[in-house]
């Protein structure tokens, strides 16, 4: 068994990443405080849920119409946090899903949250809706209008529905929080939503909410990876500008 040609560099990067994550997890074991700054977006989530409770109107959560990828796993942490809070405050939470694979997952998360908060009777299965990719936009807009949502959480893999949802939420007076790593949609969130979690902030926020030592270990490793990327980029730019392709050759191995 040998390595496939051209995959050595990426395999080493992956190994270093994994070992660093493991070392950080070990160093964080037993700790309850982690060195992470509080993201303002997370305070906004609390404020939005407070508003939902005060107004007696439901909150809406959607993960967008994008394909199932890592963003969904981060979004599940947000959903879990929001569902727990909604259950605690006796608020209704509507979840609209565009892809079928996540339907049972979201049902389970919301149901578990209401049960854990001692309010299983407040859980409404009809509020966790699968509508298919292209029906997501009309279905969510319909829910905004009919059910007069007070908070609109758009956290996940978003496409052009981002601009539609923020504008529609604003028209019913709902507060909007957006978070995605889809670079094309970030400008729409920034322009229209009340708060936006940009790129890696989206993953960091989900980790902060999870309060999980394993997640924090991975986040620290991610941070280290970022510094390594900055150093490699600078080095690569200097070498390439001076006509030296040693780093490119090394990374292609």
């Amino acid at each position: 068994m040998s390595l496939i040609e051209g995959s050595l560099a990426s395999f080493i990067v992956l190994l270093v990443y994994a070992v660093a994550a493991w070392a950080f997890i070990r160093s964080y074991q037993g700790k309850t405080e982690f060195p992470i700054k509080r993201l303002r977006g997370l305070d906004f989530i609390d404020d939005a849920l407070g508003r939902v409770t005060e107004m007696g109107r439901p909150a809406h959560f959607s993960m967008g119409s994008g394909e199932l990828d890592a963003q969904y796993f981060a979004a599940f942490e947000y959903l879990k946090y929001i569902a727990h809070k909604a259950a605690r405050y006796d608020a209704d939470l509507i979840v609209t899903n565009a892809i079928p694979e996540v339907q049972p997952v979201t049902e389970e998360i919301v149901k578990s949250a209401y049960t854990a908060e001692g309010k299983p009777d407040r859980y409404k299965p009809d509020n966790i809706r699968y509508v298919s990719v292209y029906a997501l936009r009309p279905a969510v807009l319909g829910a905004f209008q009919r059910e007069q949502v007070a908070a609109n959480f758009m956290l996940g893999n978003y496409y052009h529905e981002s601009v539609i949802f923020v504008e529609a939420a604003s028209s019913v007076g709902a507060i909007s929080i957006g978070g995605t790593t889809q670079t094309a949609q970030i400008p729409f969130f920034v322009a229209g939503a009340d708060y936006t979690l940009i790129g890696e902030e989206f993953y960091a926020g989900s980790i902060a909410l999870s309060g999980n030592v394993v997640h924090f270990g991975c986040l620290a490793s991610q941070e280290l990876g970022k510094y390594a990327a900055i150093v490699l980029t600078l080095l690569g730019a200097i070498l390439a500008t001076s006509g030296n392709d040693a780093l490119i050759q090394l990374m292609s191995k």
Partner: protein
Amino acid sequence: MSGWQKLVNLDVRILWVLLVVALLVPMVNPIGLPLPMKEETKAAFEYVESLTPGSYVLMSVNISPMGEPENWPTAIAMFRHFMKKGLRVILVNTVPEGTMYAERLWKEYGPEGDYEYGKDVVQMPFRAGDESTIASMGADFRGLYATDQYGTPLNQLPIFDDFKDIHDVSLLTEYASTIHPLYYIQQLNAKYNVPTIISIVAVDGPKFMNYYQSGQIEGLLSGVAAGAEYELLAEVPGKAASQMDALALGHALFIGAIVLSNVAWWVTKSKDSVKGGTR
């Protein structure tokens, strides 16, 4: 309420009507505005030009009705260019709607280049699974597709006579309004070094510019404007060029709206602050 304040509180439906007018009028009465040619479109054209007749092109038609106005003219222009060059085209799709567009492509435009189904062009059936399906195309193409769209086994189709696996593909082109191009870049371009050209809706263009600039992909066709440019380069007049004036006026209206609304906002804001307003 002052005129500026009225402007700030303008009913947006007025703007919507203006938008419809700005888009419709040039479609009925073309203005003939100049068409700027982008380097990444030229690079895509030149790469196709460099291919030898009989080369395999994997054409991923991940078009849906929502992406049709932006991607479809490009797909048509490129398919017609492929026929001019005598390339063998394998049509695939990983979004269900793509099936209809792939079929329209070879049925409506194939006769123009005397392309024979099964010999010069073939359509594979839709497979769900997004990135995993694309990974399977690379790992085991014949395992993923036992038959073509119409149930004919691949070994009975002459187009596959010289096709063993993904390494035989000389060019991969992807037409999409979603994240699928990224999956193709990750699973087929980066892993198997399949030369790739991406056609994407304009809003996603800047995202894929990374891959073009770094030399990872051969060309980038962003939005209907790229379709119009490609039609011009390949000398295959089509739908895209006729939409360019409407696109230009639409852009002008957006720019006007941003500037005017900000001027109105600034004027009302400064008046409020003079009066001791709360803004």
